[in-house]
C-alpha cells in the first residue's frame, strides 16, 4: 500500500491564481481530511469528508473548496490564492487513527 499520497510536493503561486492540491489514499478509508500547518504551529483542519459525496467545513475553510467523488480521492481547491494561504498542506485519511501524507509546501507571492 502506498498509503496517502499528495501532489505536488512544492508549488509557488502568484496572488489570484488558482490550483488544486491532489490527495489519494489506497486504504479504503471513509474519512479524509485536509489540514494546513503554518511555521512553528500545529495543524488546523480545513475540510473533512466522512465518505464519497459528503464533505464538511473544519476550523479554517475560507478560501478553499473540496469535493469527494470517490473514496480514494479528496482534492483541495484554492480559487484565488492569497499570501495568507502560504503554508504546508497535509491530507490524511482514517479508519481509527489518522494517516498523513507527506505534505504540499505552497508559497503565494
Amino acid at each position, binding site marked *: 500500500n502506498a498509503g496517502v499520497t499528495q501532489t505536488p510536493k512544492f508549488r509557488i503561486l502568484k496572488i489570484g491564481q488558482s490550483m488544486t492540491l491532489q490527495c489519494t489514499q489506497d486504504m479504503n478509508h471513509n474519512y479524509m481530511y485536509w*489540514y494546513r500547518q503554518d511555521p512553528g504551529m500545529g*495543524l488546523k*483542519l480545513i475540510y473533512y469528508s466522512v465518505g464519497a459525496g459528503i464533505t464538511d467545513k473544519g476550523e479554517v475553510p475560507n478560501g478553499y473548496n473540496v469535493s469527494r467523488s470517490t473514496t480514494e480521492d479528496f482534492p483541495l481547491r484554492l480559487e484565488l490564492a492569497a499570501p495568507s494561504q502560504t503554508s504546508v498542506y497535509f491530507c490524511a485519511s482514517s479508519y481509527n487513527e*489518522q494517516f498523513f501524507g507527506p505534505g504540499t509546501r505552497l508559497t503565494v507571492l
Partner: protein
Amino acid sequence: GESVGLHLPTLSVQEGDNSIINCAYSNSASDYFIWYKQESGKGPQFIIDIRSNMDKRQGQRVTVLLNKTVKHLSLQIAATQPGDSAVYFCAEQSGGSQGNLIFGKGTKLSVKP
C-alpha cells in the same frame, strides 16, 4: 485561544535518558487523545492514543498518561534515541467525531548524542 497546548516548546535530552513531553487541554468533554511525531519535512506519524476511560497506556518505549482531574496529558519516551528527535504534537477529540481533532502547537525534542 487553543484548547490544546503544550507546557514547553522545546526539550533537549541526552541520548539514553527518558523524555517527558507535556500537554494541557481545556475541553473537559474531550474523550480521545493522540500523540503524533513529526520529523522535518514529513507528515505527522501516529505514536500512541488513549481514551478518557483510561489513565495510562503503554506502547513500545512510549507511555501516555492522562490526568483528567487537571486536564493534563503526557508522553514518556524511554531510553531516548537520536531517531526520536522530532516535533511532538498532542491532539484531542470529543464526542467520537473524527472531524473534530484539535492539535496543539507542538514540542520540539532534540536528542544530544
